[in-house]
């Protein structure tokens, strides 16, 4: 499996798309931190890239790669290899390649140029979101046979996690504003990987504001060790669960 991972990485790292993605991240992070004399503004731009662009690219790139590799997957399946290993190998290969791109393009420059606690948690969030959304992309490509459908599904997932979910929660919040909603809302937020990453970053970036009225509950939950562990486990679940379902479906899939 490790060998498969190696070859997938070799293949992806040579692709122009991944090169363009790395370059885009690198150009963005360098320009926002060197042109902007206010590092806080740079971090804010970086936050939007991590919460919006990184999931989108991870989803679309992985989905397209999986469809383009379908004949290659056929070849692999006809070899004496376990299907579980093939799929996990593909996941690991795609994921590691995107993680390398993110590290080179965003994490390293941000840590070198900013180096604050916010920069660290942002890099961590970017890596986590990449892993989560590659896993979701693998699932969508295993479920749907049609390439257009698969990409459509990936786009929908992105729209849902980064926009619709929050929209629905806000709507819910206004509908039930007479009830004590802090705890349920916090739980709902933690269940969306994008929201969870955002909240973790906010805890460093906007700690002054968060320690105000509602902030107490943020800190009570995420400020403790138990909170950090539960946040990390939810992220991990978002990586493992879709992949597990994908493996199960893939093992029964007719190719």
């Amino acid at each position, binding site marked *: 499996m490790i060998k498969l991972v*190696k070859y997938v990485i*070799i*293949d*992806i790292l040579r692709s122009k798309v991944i090169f363009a993605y790395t370059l885009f991240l690198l150009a963005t992070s360098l320009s926002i931190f060197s042109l902007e004399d206010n590092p806080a503004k740079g971090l804010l731009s970086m936050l939007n890239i991590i919460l919006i662009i990184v999931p989108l690219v991870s989803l679309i790139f992985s989905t397209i790669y999986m469809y383009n590799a379908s*004949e290659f997957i056929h*070849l692999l399946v*006809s*070899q*004496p290899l376990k299907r579980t290993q093939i799929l996990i190998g593909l996941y690991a290969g795609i994921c590691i390649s995107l993680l390398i791109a993110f590290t080179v393009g965003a994490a390293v420059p941000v840590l070198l140029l900013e180096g604050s606690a916010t920069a660290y948690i942002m890099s961590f969030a970017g890596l986590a979101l990449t892993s989560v959304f590659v896993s979701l992309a693998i699932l969508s490509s295993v479920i749907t046979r049609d390439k257009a459908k698969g990409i459509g599904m990936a786009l929908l997932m992105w729209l849902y996690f980064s926009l619709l979910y929050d929209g629905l929660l806000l709507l819910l919040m206004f509908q039930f504003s007479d009830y004590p909603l802090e705890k349920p809302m916090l739980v709902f937020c933690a269940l969306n990987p994008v929201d969870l990453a955002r909240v973790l970053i906010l805890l460093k970036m906007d700690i002054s504001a968060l320690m105000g009225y509602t902030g107490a509950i943020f800190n009570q939950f995420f400020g403790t060790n138990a909170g950090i562990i539960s946040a990390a486990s939810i992220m991990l679940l978002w990586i493992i669960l879709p992949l597990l379902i994908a493996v199960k479906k893939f093992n029964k899939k*007719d190719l």
Partner: protein
Amino acid sequence: MIIANEITKTFGKLKALNKVSLTLSKGETISLIGSNASGKTTFIKCLLGMVIPDTGTISFNNQNILNTWQYRSSIGYMPQIAHYPDNMNIGQIFDMLHDLRKQSATDADTELITSFGLNRFMNKSMRTLSGGTRQKVSAAIAFLFHPQVLILDEPTAGLDPLSSELLKEKIRKEKEQGKLILITSHILSDLDDLVTQVIYLQEGEIIFHKNISQLRSETNEEKLSRVIAAIMKNNNSQND
């Protein structure tokens, strides 16, 4: 060597295979023929574990292949159309397969690589290859690990006459070594003299599975293509 027992597979409403039972023995070179969508490729994919039958069992050397993968190390498979990772070159594809199968390159069967002249293209990336060259790579891969069983799906389809002849020569050699070779093809003429058995599939059902000599005597035709044509004709007139 391979025994299929009452294999049924449906895709939606389409019955791709309907209670197919077959025994494929060592030393035979079997031509699997049938019109388009007759279930040839589905049957091959069932053998390779790429498609999982709804009912029925397949055993390979008396082992049920369901949920196993080790048996595939004894099969060489050449798909109808093959794509490989775009950004790898031919050499890397071969290296990767050696790596993945944990079999060293020294005892590999590189005869086809040499005779196809693939050595010259080892550094060419897969993206830039013509369909024919890709077929050559697929063929070379199928034979690479000295498999006991060869499954070739439309092997000569995209090949030029010279390469086609080279492949045929190779198949003949393997046949002489007593291997089981399963070929699907609808252009039969160029494989006529290799085939020892014919399986004829139609709409997911086996119409017949016979030795070539038996077929010849039944139809009084010498050339395999004529034999088949005669049978198909017979069959159609029966249906009408």
